[in-house]
Every structure is written in C-alpha cells, then in structure tokens.
C-alpha cells in the first residue's frame, strides 16, 4: 500500500476510501445486530452505528437505518457529549452514554453511546451507536403517560466505561430498574462492542493509508456531499411553501403546520401554527426527532443516493414553537412520539407538491406504524409480551401506485404470523388487503390491511395500541384523493385507537390500517391500470365507476 498521503480530491481515491468508511460502520452494525439479545434490536433493526470525525460531525453511517437516526448522533455529539466531555477529558477505553430524550432521539428506551477513537494518544474520531432497549422501566411502551417520569429511568451523559472498566454502580441501577435486566445489559454490551469494532477498524484504515487523522478526509466527503445537496436545492425556486394536516391526536385533533422556506442553497422548515403539546399522552415529539424527520423528507426528494453524512444535514434547519407538540417542555411524555413524528415527511411532501410534483408521494398509511403490544399470561402462568406492527399503504407516486402495506417513513419488518402465534396465545384470523382502501389518483395509494386477532388463552390479553389516522385519512397530493381511514374494532364494536384493549378468551380485535393517498388526478389514470386493478380485485367495479368513471367490459367481467 502507498504510504504517501492520498489526494482526497482524486475522484477514485475518495470513492475507495469513503466506501471503506461505510463498510466499517456496516461491520459495526453487523456486530451489534448479531450480539444483541432483544427482538426490537435484531428483528426491527432499531439501532444505528455512525462514524464521526474529531468534531463530532457524521462521516459514515451503516447502510441500513430508519429516519430518526440520520441526524441524531452527530447532533448529540456536537451539542452535548463534546460540551460535557471535551477531548482532553477523555482517555482510551472510555465509553460515554445517556438515554436523555432531549439529547438522543426523543424517548427513554433509546440509549446514545459514543466512544472516542485514539491514534497516537490523540482523539481523532468518535464511534457512535444508538439502540432501542427492550425496557427502560416505567410504564410499558404505549401512548398513555402524563410526564416523562412515568416513562422510565433516565441517566445523564456519563462514562459507562472509564479507561476500559465498566461503571458497575450505574449498570446495577439500570439492571434494578428494568423488567428484563439480562437483555438490557446484554444490548448495552453489544453497543460497546460495536463501537469497539469501529475504533479498531478505523485505526487499521488510518495505518493502511498513512494518515494521522480523519478530518481532512471528512472535509472532502462532507464538502462534496454538501455541495451536491446545495446544488439540488438551488434547482428549486426560492419561496415559502406551506401545508397543514389534522391528526386524531389524543382526545382532540392535533394540527401540524409547516412552512418550507427555500432560500438559494439552504432550506428552513418552520412548524409555526402547530398544536400545543398534550398533557396525558406520550405522543409529544421532541426537537431532535422532529429535525431528523425534516431532514429525512428533504433528503428523499433532493439527494436519495448519496450515503448519509454531515454534508447532507447542514443545509437544512428547522424550528417549532416552544410548548408545541413538536417542541414540548422537557417534562413532557414522549415514548410514542412516532405517532406524530412519522407524519412529518408526508406533511413536507404536501407542502412541496407544487415545487417537485414528480418527486413527492401521497401521504402513507405507514405514518405512523400501527403498533399492538400484546401482554398477559400463558395458560401455564408464564408472562408474555410481544409487539406486532401493522402498516397501511404507501402514498401514490408520480410513476407508480403506492406499495401496499409498507413501513414508511420508518422501516420495520413485521414478525411472521406463525412466529407471533408461538409467542402469544393469539389466533390471527385474517390478514388481508382491503380493496378500495388506496386513495384514487393517476397513481393510487397502496392498500391498507385488515387483521383480526382472537385471544386463544384462558386469561385476558391486554393489547396496548398506538394507532392514528382513524378520523383523518391519508391525503393525496397533486390532485390525488384521500385513502380510507383506519379502524379499530373490538368484537365488532368501534374501539379507541389509542390506549388499552382487553380481550377475554375468544374476544376479537380487528385493526384496519389506512390506505395511502393518491398521486395526481383520478381522471388521468390509464384504463389499463384500472382494468388490472379490477382483474386483481384491488378495486371494486363500484369504486371504478365512482372514482374513475370506468364502466368498461373488464369491470363487468370482474363482477
């Protein structure tokens, strides 16, 4: 290998070295996923690994991610970790961590961990990871809590390891406060190991290329990405583009209002006019969670291909009024902040439908995830607790219909029915697409699904629900129509979409997830697509007639 310092502006060098940094983050991702114990980390991949430069700026991130993680680690590092623990207070083997929602990702179960990487006795970079622990004490994860103190324990930024020695007092307190200490401590250990992988591999990489620091390389990556991002913004017209949406909220409607302000090569997102925070529900969405979703939506539209790093983040700023549901007071409950936060990308797409009509998509039924957390006792008296997610249809797109039943904007796979029925004494009686649920349009929204759960156990099953869009369906864009709203029924009767549903033996809970909103005017939909939908039974002949004015022969045949 060459020992002269490589030229970071050489298009081939940079690509090779950049790929390698992403690979290092992916290796750490692999280590974390395989050693983690809890299903939420392994199955849903609710974690992230990020390499940061010596200033805490994002350099490379593991390929797999969910939106909340794209900006939260570097923000936490720059604004909090490096403030509290500057480089000269750190030594090799230190591991810093916190679960403070203000610093991390907006809810207590997520732990943010940062490990300094040393070369020649100097901090040259930071390895960071965030993972969603299976428990953090307090109430089980759902949407009802009055303040953050009901939601679990909180530890400030501290040295979880000091010079390689675990801080046993802190670990003991955590273990004593959570329901599943083995899994929780195991997952923390996995994060330490993953950060260790990044540290080891980065030093190896620096040795190989004869480098003493990463900041020069970081500058090259970040400035190139930032220039690309800003170039994409400049292609948009200057202006203020607004939208608002009503959500079911908790008890009363919640309004989210946005103004996307495009000015030359940067974008500011302002949520003025958004509803106040809610006192008795944990759907308040903190700044860092909101900001991540603002950035995510814009990156999808402006530069979906560049691997995420600081350069993709800096051109975007956002704000929301203090005390609003998107910038709540520090004591507000926020465990289920995704119920509100997941809708942000759809809202921003709506605001920009006149600017980039071919890029935005209709509102998605996966915003938010519909979570059912089933808790109770098996017939033999042992405890069960397992979450199953259900997703609605993706919004219609300029070129294609929305995909049916898709996790968007989040990205969580669901558990197989056969596996879920082994974990929980439940019978899933059906899980099927709902014809006509996708909003009409030139390209219609994806379909929602209907699932029916029956309690097979002898004791009651408590199902904690965090669902939305029951009164306010997913809207269309560029003239597309709304999808059908969601629905929760218990034994055929309408049930509250948030909070607890108790199923006695044989009782049934039915969930119907929302259909995605359409893209473009329904009358522009091609007859071929209408016929195909009729043949596939994805729309009924009545709907074909009502929304598309279609009464052609295939509709007759399908009847």
């Amino acid at each position, binding site marked *: 290998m060459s020992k002269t310092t490589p030229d970071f502006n050489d298009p*081939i060098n940079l690509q090779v070295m*950049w790929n390698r940094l992403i*690979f290092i983050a992916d*290796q750490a991702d692999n280590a974390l996923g395989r*050693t983690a114990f809890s299903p939420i980390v*392994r199955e849903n991949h609710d974690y992230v690994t990020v390499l940061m430069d010596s200033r805490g700026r994002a350099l490379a991130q593991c390929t797999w991610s969910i939106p909340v993680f794209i900006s939260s680690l570097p923000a936490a590092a720059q604004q909090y970790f490096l403030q509290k623990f500057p480089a000269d207070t750190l030594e090799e083997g230190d591991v810093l961590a916190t679960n403070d929602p203000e610093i991390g990702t907006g809810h207590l179960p997520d732990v943010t961990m940062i490990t300094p990487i040393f070369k020649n006795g100097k901090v040259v970079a930071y390895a960071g990871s965030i993972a969603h622990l299976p428990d953090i004490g307090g109430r089980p994860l759902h949407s009802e809590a009055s303040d953050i103190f009901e939601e679990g324990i909180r530890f400030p930024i501290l040295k979880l390891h000091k010079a390689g020695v675990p801080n046993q007092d802190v670990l003991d307190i955590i273990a004593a406060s959570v329901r599943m200490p083995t899994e929780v401590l195991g997952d923390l250990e996995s994060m330490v190991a993953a950060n260790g992988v990044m540290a080891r591999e980065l030093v190896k990489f620096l040795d190989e290329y004869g480098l003493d620091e990463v900041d020069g390389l970081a500058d090259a990556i970040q400035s190139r990405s930032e220039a690309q991002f800003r170039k994409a913004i400049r292609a948009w017209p200057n202006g203020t583009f607004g939208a608002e949406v009503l959500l079911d909220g908790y008890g009363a409607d919640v309004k989210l209002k946005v103004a996307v302000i495009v000015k030359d090569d940067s974008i500011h997102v302002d949520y003025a006019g958004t509803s106040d925070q809610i006192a008795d529900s944990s759907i308040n969405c903190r700044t860092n969670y909101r900001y991540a979703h603002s950035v995510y939506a814009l990156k999808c539209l402006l530069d979906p291909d*560049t691997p995420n790093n600081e350069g993709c983040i800096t051109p975007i700023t956002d704000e929301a009024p203090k005390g609003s549901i998107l910038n709540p007071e520090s004591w507000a409950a926020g465990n289920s902040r995704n119920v509100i936060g997941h809708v942000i990308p759809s809202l921003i797409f709506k605001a920009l439908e006149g600017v980039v009509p071919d890029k935005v998509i209709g509102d998605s039924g996966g915003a938010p995830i519909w979570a059912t957390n089933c808790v109770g006792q098996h017939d033999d008296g042992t405890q069960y607790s397992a979450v199953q997610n259900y997703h609605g249809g993706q919004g219609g797109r300029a070129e294609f219909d929305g995909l049916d039943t898709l996790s968007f904007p989040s990205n969580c796979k669901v558990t197989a029915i056969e596996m879920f029925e082994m974990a929980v004494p439940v019978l899933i009686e*059906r899980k099927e697409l709902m014809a006509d649920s996708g909003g009409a349009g030139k390209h219609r929204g994806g379909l929602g699904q209907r699932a029916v759960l029956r309690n097979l156990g002898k004791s009651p099953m408590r199902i904690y629900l965090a669902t939305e869009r029951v009164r306010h369906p997913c809207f269309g864009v560029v003239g597309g129509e709304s999808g059908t709203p969601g629905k929760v029924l218990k034994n055929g009767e309408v049930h509250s979409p948030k909070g607890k549903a108790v199923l006695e033996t044989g009782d049934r809970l039915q969930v119907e997830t929302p259909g995605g909103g359409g893209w473009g005017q329904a009358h522009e939909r091609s007859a071929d697509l209408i016929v195909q939908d009729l043949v596939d*039974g994805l729309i009924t002949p009545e709907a074909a007639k009502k929304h598309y004015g279609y009464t052609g022969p295939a509709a007759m045949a399908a009847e």
Partner: protein
Amino acid sequence: MAKLAFDTGGTFTDFALLDDNGDLHLHKVLSTPKNPAEAVVQGVTELLEQFGQSISLENLQVLGATTVVTNAVLERKGVETGFITTDGFRDMLRIRNEGRYDLYDLNIKYPDPLVSRANSFGVGERIAASGDVITELKEETVREIAGKLKDKGIRSVAVCLLHAYKYPQHEQRVAALLREEDPDIFVSLSSEVCPEVREFDRASTTVVNAYTRPQMSGHVAHLQREFSKKGIDRQVLWMTSSGGLVPSRRAAELPVRLIESGPAAGAVAAAEFGRIAGEGSVLSFDMGGTTAKLCLIPHGEPTIGTELEVAHYQRFRKGSGFPLKIQSIQMIEIGAGGGSIAAKNPLGLLDVGPRSAGALPGPAAYQRGGTEPTVTDADILLGYMGVESFVGGSFKVSKDAARTAIEQLANDLGVSVERCAWGIHDLVNESMSKAAAMHATDLGVDPRSLPMVAFGGAGPVHAYGIARKLGIKRIICPTGAGVTSAIGLLIAPVAVDLSASHPMAIDGWDMDVMNQVLDDLAVQGSEVVSAGGVSRDTITNRYTVDMRHIGQGYEIIVQLPDRSLPKAEFLKQLLDNFYKLYRELFGRTVAAPVEVITWRLRASGEKDQVTRPHHTDVAEALKGHREVFFHELGANVATPVYDHYRLPVDEPIQGPAIVEQRESTAVVGPSGTAHVDTNGNLVINIL
C-alpha cells in the same frame, strides 16, 4: 465408472468427461437458451464421438447443473401458477414482510408475485401453532377452487397452509382433492417443498417451485429420452444448491432446490482444489461476465445456509427479491463482473456497476454494439487480458475500442486514461474484497488466513489485486478454470438435505418425539439417496438442529450429538455444542433457556476424487511479452506471458507475469511468484 458432467450456463454449456481409464476431457459449446437441452445433447454427442471407445455406456453416469430453474424465474418464463392458502391470507405474496430495502428511494418496487391475486385462493381450514386443528378442512371450498383452476387452464399449483410444517394432513388432502378434479395437475405442497416455520418465506419457496416445475419436468424427461437413445439408461443426477446430487425424479419434483445449481458445483470444485493443494480452509472466488461469487469453505466443506433470495427487483439489493428457504451453500453474489459498466456518478466520482453490458452488447472491446466502458475493457487496456488469446483466440477483441470507451469517461472525470482504467479495476477489487471480508467475518473467520481459489473467466485476472487488499498470501488458479463447475459435478456426492420444523425446548425435551422426527427424515433420505445409485448401507446421515434462546428471532445451526446417548448426557452435549458455537459467533453467551426450532438431515453417499497429474510439455511455455500496467510499479512494463499448460511443474516464475489458459488469464503482480503444482494448478504466492 465413467462420468459425464454438463453445466448449462448463460453463454456456454461446459462439459467434463471422466472416462473408464480415469482420464479427464473438457469441452465447451455455445448455450441454446431457447431450449437448453439442445446444447447439452450436442456436447454429449460430440464427446461420445471422440471418446466413446474408452467408455462403457451402460455404466456411464451423467451429471447435470442447470440454469433452467433460475432463468425461468428471472425471465418470468414459468407457467401460469395457482396459489392456495388458508382463508384470510391469500394476499401473503403481496403483503411480504412490510419492510423497505432502501431508506431514501421513494420509488422502490418489488417483483410482481409469480402468482396473480386472481389466481390466489383461500380454503376454509385452520391449524394452531400447537399443530391442533382449529377449523377442519372444508373440502367443498377446495373442490370449488379446483374447478376454477381447471377452467383457467392452470397446470401447476402451490399450496401453503398456515402451520402446515407442523400438521401437513390438510395440505395432503388438498392435493388429493385437486388431483381428483385434474389428475395431471402439478401440486407443490409447502410441507414437502419447505417444511419450515414462517409462512411468507415458505409460501415464496413453494410458489417458485410450482412456477418452474412443469418446465424442469419437461427438461429432465426430454434429456432422459435423448440419453436413452444413445444407450445411456442411468437416471441423470442433478446438482442442488446445497452441493449434493439428486436423481432426475426428485429434481423434477423439487426444482427450487436447483436454483443455485451451477454456483454450488463451482464451490464443490473449489473445495476439492483447495484440498488437493494441501489447504484446510479456502476462499472460493468465481468471477464471470455479470456476477462474482465468493464462498468461504472452512475445512474443505462449504457452509450450508438456509436463506437465499432470487429475482431481485433492484440488482443485488438484498430484500428486493423472492426469499427462498432452502438449504444452499452459503456464498455471496456481487453484482460486478467483466461486463459491469463504469460511469461517473452525480457527485463526480467513479462508479462501477450495478449496470452490466452482459453478453450483448457486451464490453466495448467486443465490438458488438457496446460503447460504455466495462471492467473487461479496463482489464484489456491495462494489459491484463490479451487481445490475441481471448477464449483461446477464437474471439476477436479490440484494444482500441476499449481505449475509446475509457477515454470518454476519463475526460469526464478529469483523469488520465491509465488512471481511469486502473481506477475501474481497483474499484471492482475493492468491492470484492469488502464483500469477502464481510462474508468471512460473518462466519467468524479472518480472511487473511485463507488461500484463495480463483476461477471463472475474470477470477484469476482480479485475484491478485483482491488478495493484496485482503492480505491473502496464496492464490490457487485451477486448470480448466473455465469449466470448474462441470468438474465440481464429477466430485460431488449424491446427497439430499431434509428438514422438519418441530420446536422443542430443552426443558421439555422428549427423546421419543425427537427420534420419531429424525427417523422420518432418515427414511425419506435413504429413499432419495439410494435412488441415486448409492447402496443403503453406505449412506452417511448427519443431523443438525437450528437452535436459539427462547424468545430470540433467529437460530444458529448446531451439530446433534449421538442420539443413542442417555438423555442427560445427550442434552449436556447438545447445549455444549450450542454455547460453543454461540460464543464463537457472538463472542459471549447468555443465561437464558434454549430451544430447537428445526431438525435437519443431510443424507449422503461418498465424494469422488478427480486427480489429474500435470503433463509438462517440453515446448517453450513463454509465449512472448506485452505491456502491462502495475500500480505498485506506477507504470506499464514489458511483462512475460506464459502458457499455463506448458509450464513445467514447480518451476518458479517471478512476477510480474501473465499466465494464460484457454478461457482465463492469471495476473501475477510484482510482489508475487508463481508455479504450477503436480496437479496442474497455478499457485501464486504473494510476499
């Protein structure tokens, strides 16, 4: 016993014949994609004409690897298929697992299910997770569907009922009822194709089987008839994705198991070449025109995994295809080969792939319409591949055309042509080495400790650069590197992999139930393997189990101890095996209860050997010199070019050097020395 192997590939159908005297003959004919059997019959005819006198036909065993199944799925040329599942779940194939394979791309798509929604049906029945029947099968609903299938002219059906891996009787009854209505219908049952828990994966696997079955049945029957005409009466044995051979009948019933037939044969060959070179574990590297396959072979045995994916909507994007739950040799496929196109990305950086020029239009140097620069063009321009000796000189290529294509890109990037060509070559090496490192560490192995077995048209060209990146010290380029998979067929044992999902916690262990599950598997295994010509008493049964901590989501595959041990000792050994592997993979163990999810059997005959002493020729091995670029030297240097087949055994060649075979070229860089070993393999050692 004489053996004749054929491997149907995208461009060529390769042959390897081992005659009664133990001599090996290699052959290659152009593939006939419309009817792959034509090329097979042609090649067999040609080989028999030439070497017929040294073969007794009545004992000749024909062996096959095929792309028929893969291509039917990739090109969506299977038959119109029906799908039957439990009522309420007919949308399973469309709903998938609800995740996305790309976070930022709002326009992702998945391949359309192989069965349309209109051809998907639910039958009234339900089985619980325990295996108890909750709702009896409503036979009238099956008869009604059978009628509809008949009206639609559907000849092949996949049946996947919930929890059928645990209680297959409902599926079996559905099959019987369907056959009552239409005796000729092909019925694929999930409880037979893939008796494992997780409904979407099982259904997806069963559907691929049903979709390709009539075609594969036809192919098998056709070849069997053609061979019969030549006096070859033995059942053809076919390579499965797990590296074992199965008789024609089983291949025709379970074509999904053949989906990675050719690559599996390549891995079997690489394992053997590593063994005869005296190596323990090797990294197999097979690089062709559109893809490369990397396979870690620990201790001479490829690792068998249970997860596979085909027909990716976005090339090689994990999660964008159809999942298959079948036993297959664990390897990774990288979307880069000789035909991969190099281009400037929006950030102004060089990208190679995933777009490929394929065989048509092909690399610019082929002058068959391709104008975009490819990896092959870069390799030609750098001097790694010669223009005169391409595929033995039978194929005309142009270095000027390669240069023109790369010049354009170099100008766009603002770098010199040499820099650009080297960049393409090096970037491909970089992605291969990263993939190899990931694959090896996935399996808990340090890739630096492994020798590499390199084959395929482009494998030996790139092996040196990749080995240097990985820190690999030794490369083995086998003879016949262009037909390695066919050679693998000669070596592979008759073997079948069977499985049954039947969860059992260590705390509630029942030896009797276990023995019944395993005995059932053994009876099935013996039937298949003996049909492949292996006598029942020489069959080796190897049992493994998929285990995990209760509450976890995925399992690790653990060796089952001797089942004649007393229960306490048996369980102790089983847990020891589990914890040992768990620690190896994850660096730690956890104090939580453990369970078995799936039971597995590999029933197998013996592996064969193909050793061929290298015949050195007295003729001069040096063919001449050409200008070749080496990054380590920072320049083009006049480099000697040798003929692999004429090199004397053990005579050292100092790099830089080029060693050519008919279908591939090995690059020996400045830090390497090379020699041909007694088996005729080129061994490159790197300082």
